[in-house]
């Protein structure tokens, strides 16, 4: 059971890592002017909700399997994801708004956020991996 939870988390985490890398790549494409803001934002906005779901899934999994430490580790990230979707102004086209992304250093802060998430997911990846192996051994 425990092993199954961590295997699932691991898969989930891999997906989140890929997503984070995708975000970073797309944002840096925008930074380098390879794609335009409209295309970039519509690409990214499409993945905001899946990312949120993936992160929430991992959090819930940890909660139901009563791994408090990992749960608490995941909780802030999950709530941040929800908060940022929730606070999008009505007139904006999503978390990433093509008309705003070049203003007030938003591009940079999005970039920073994605990098931090990437680091976080990598950390989680190893935690899950370790826990999974541990669980498999224990079984």
């Amino acid at each position, binding site marked *: 059971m425990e092993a199954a939870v961590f295997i699932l988390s691991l898969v989930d985490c891999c997906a989140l890592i890929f997503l984070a890398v995708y975000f970073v790549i797309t944002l840096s494409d*925008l*930074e380098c*002017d390879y794609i*335009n*803001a*409209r295309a970039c934002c519509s690409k990214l906005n499409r993945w905001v909700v899946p990312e949120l779901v993936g992160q929430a899934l991992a959090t819930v999994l940890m909660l139901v399997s009563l791994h408090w430490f990992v749960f608490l580790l995941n909780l802030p990230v999950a709530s941040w994801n929800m908060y940022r979707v929730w606070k999008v*102004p*009505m*007139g*904006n*086209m999503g978390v990433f708004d*093509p*008309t705003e*992304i*070049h*203003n*007030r*250093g938003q*591009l940079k802060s999005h970039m920073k956020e994605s990098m931090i998430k990437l680091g976080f997911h990598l950390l989680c990846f190893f935690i899950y991996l370790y826990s999974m192996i541990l669980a498999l051994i224990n079984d």
Partner: protein
Amino acid sequence: MLGLWVFVFTVETFSNQSVPLCSHSVSVKEQHALNPGPSQNPVALQPPGPGYMAHQTPYNPMQAKGPMPPGPGLYNSGPYQPVPPVSSNQALPGQPMLKRPPMGPQHSMTPPQSASPNPGSRIPPAHATPPPVSANNYQHAPAWQYGGTPPMGAPPPMAMPPLRPAGNHMTSSPSLATPQASSAEYRATPPVFHNAMQPLCPPTSLQGYTQQGSAPLLMNPMAAPHSYQPGMRAPYGGPPPSVRPTPPTTGPPMGNATPPLGPKTDGHMPTPGNGAQVPNSFDHLEMGPKMAGPLPPQQPSPPTRHMGLSYPSLPPGYQNTSAPPNAATMQHPVQPSTQPYSHPQPYQQPSAGPAQLSPSLSGLSLQSQTPEALRVVNLLQERNLLPLGPVTPPTPCLPQDLQKINCHPEVFRSTLTSIPQTQSLLNKAKLPLGLLLHPFKDLSQLPVVTSSTIVRCRSCRTYINPFVTFLDQRRWKCNLCYRVNDVPEEFMYNPVSRSYGEPHKRPEVQNATLEFIAPSEYMLRPPQPAVYLIVLDVSHNAVETGYLDVVCQSLLENINALPGDSRTKIGFITFDSTIHFYNLQEGLSQPQMLIVSDIEDIFLPTPDSLLVNLNECKELVQDLLRSLPQMFGKTMETQCALGPALQAAFKLLSATGGRVSVFQTQLPSLGVGALKSREDPNQRASAKDIQHLSPATDFYKKLALDCSGQQVAVDLFLLSSQYCDLASLGCISRYSAGSVYYYPSYHQQHNPAGVECFQKDLKRYLTRKIGFEAVMRIRCSKGLSIHTFHGNFFVRSTDLLSLPNVNPDAGFAVQMSIEENLVDMQSVSFQAALLYTSSKGERRIRVHTMCLPVVNSLSDIFAGADVQAITCLLASMAVDRSVTASLSDARDAMTNASIDSLTSFRTSVLTIQQPGLLAPACLRLFPLYILALLKQKAFRTGTSTRLDDRVYAMCQLKYQPLAYVMLMIHPALYRVDDLTDEGALNVSERTIPQPRVQQLSVEKLSRDGAFLMDAGSVIYLWIGRNCNPNFLTQVLGLPNYAAVPLNMNMLPELDTAESQRTRAFVGWLREQRPFFPILHVIRDESPLKASFLQNMIEDRTESALSYYEFLLHIQQQVSK
């Protein structure tokens, strides 16, 4: 997009001009040879000749003001003048072109001007638009007249120039035409072009004029130089030229010059060339910080006058206007106002004495070591801070040669004319760093280059510009990325002079503002035709306002004046709860209306015939326009489906791109994009914070981005009496680079003033220049980057703005940040390149380049602060802040901006701590402007302000050019019951009185006077209860005060001197802006009195501080 930016220019058209220039250019070369190094370029450009010399002298004072970071060594003061003239003359070798000497008069002229700003601006101030005559230099005008009048007789041209630069050119050209067929061609083209030709050499615009103009320009040349300098200073460059009259001496020479020119352009050209050469020697000299001294000798009388009047910043001028209390009282009995401020004894600065005295000294800059801009002003003590005339932008402390060719401040302006070396230094100064642009401004002269190769940096794609360095003849170093590039073979040949091997003389390297013509081979698609689509609201509410008549009438009248060529297309859509299309295909006997009632899924009924060629189907179009107002006369349909109508418009234009003009009168209520009223009128005044400043839906934004992608711009005309949710609707224009026009309470019968205003604006809107499928890229030197953009456009990538349409009335602002330290750099450059398709189907690139010095001390940063630019940038930032955060946040931020910068000045720059609220002279108006912003419609609280009014004011703050925004923020108040011709401006044979600007305080109003308040989009004429009966009868044509009607919107045309003066003044104010400000004559009982009094920003209101209280508040915070 990138593809667009890479263009090659193939055509060579200079030949015409080149002829005259040749000889001239040659001489120039020689001189250049003497000068080694990069400086050559600038030099060549600058040295117009003797004329310049004069200019320089005047400048000195200016320089003095500025901090001279580089050190005195750079600038030679005295010697400079003498030298240049000599050199120029010499250069002239053999040239009969004594004309040059005529320039001499210019010199005289210049001095006054010089005092104010730099001559440097080469950009022609004049706008293409009629109003070119800028009001800016009120003071100048008088001076000019004095000087000029006598001379005027001799050189008629002189008189002419002032009036309209553009017009002059045109007129003059004919005379010239005789010699050259080519000249005729030029004329045909926009005035600009013609300039361009000559200008080639004109790096210094002045030179260009004289030279090329040779024959024809005689008149113009004179004007041109004048205009330039004044223009630079003045917000509205255009007018200043008029001042020119002064140059009596020049006048004669001019005349001389002309004759020679007529015979042979060549001869003429040489003269200019000489001028150009001369500069080399000058450049260094000119910079002398304290030229003031020398100036007087040349033209003693006029200069002093000018100085004081025109340039408030100068010590003498300052005295008059804002003089310290003592001086002020002395000079102006009126001054009692000072007393209130002075009362707080503690604040009085004993020490202030010296500072105040200094100005009194004839002073000029000699007085003290600190530049005028840094002169310490105790705001609590000095009440009268407003300059007599317009507030002039500071001059960057660049070597004179560079400054002379620098971009005109009306086009390109920086909040800090000295760029801090590091971000931390910038943070310390607490001033925003940013640029304000007006890139598509109507210019009276603009060099146009058609060339086989457009030379650009290979790594950063910067266009070659006057601020690059030529390492040798074959290599140039980019001033933005510092890459060394090869000079292409074609560039070695100078078509202007027909000489080889002097790339630094090419027009591209001589002009900071110029236009390239891009050949069609390099376009992504063939240039689009001009396409106009009119979308009209015809619901019951709309018909009721009666706007359809006005729109159709205006279109009928101006249908031939719409910019375009034989391919121009036009189409119409009307909508209420359904969408109506009009089939105007050729061959139909009358327009055919097609109704689409399925607004959920909009389709085009006959895709081919809805947009028709205007020339082929003009009759049908006219038929439609004539019948349209009646067609819906009895409609009872109250719903309005704006969203679907916009979708239909987008579909119709997506194949070609173009302009959609939407006329809307109510909240859209049907289909996609329907909105609900979000405003609670009862909360207007009481609400703690203003809600609903951001859009309610992203529909309009998405559609705008779709439009932007298809090169469609949407202009929105909102004519409504109720809430329309401009915050949501405005997005459609904001992101598609359109513009928004709002006429609150528009009604044909009930609001005749609004109707007149709408009519005039519509005329301007329909006939003004337009650029299609445009993009603008703003590049800046390595180390700087753009942080935030303000204006109407879509930012497509980090420095690329997508502008489906660009119009001459659009302004832009960007905030910059310093990413890498600018150590080791003397200067940084900014380049804005606007690529657009003209209405004639020509692909053009307009390039503006500005160069600014880098400094490493806080005091230098403060000395270079441009208070107007800072205010405008802060206003834009505050608009963003109120939308993303809240209005109160934005208000706090603005107040803090003034507190922080003054604190920083006090702690870091001032060595001696004095009591009081101390500000550098260049920022003395900063707290006043901030207070004005807090009381501006956009940001005020506590006063009942309709949400739409507020949002519209915010839109305007963001996309209007600086000059208009400043009037919106801080209106100008004049006393007009005692207008005299003294000090008047002479513009195109009209005498424009120049009353001085009064403080915006009720205490300045006197019951026995009449006051004119110019608030940008509206002008109020307030009549005092005991107003001079003479004024009432002679100007208003009314027997007494009681007879003043409550709604009076025009001045009767009476044949009295007073009436003529007043009308000339009002007319002149109106000419300075593209749109028509309505005049309201008001008296105490008038309903509009409230809005008049709301502009009295120095006074206390129920909810806002008075200026003095505000200062006390700031002082408290500063001394914490």
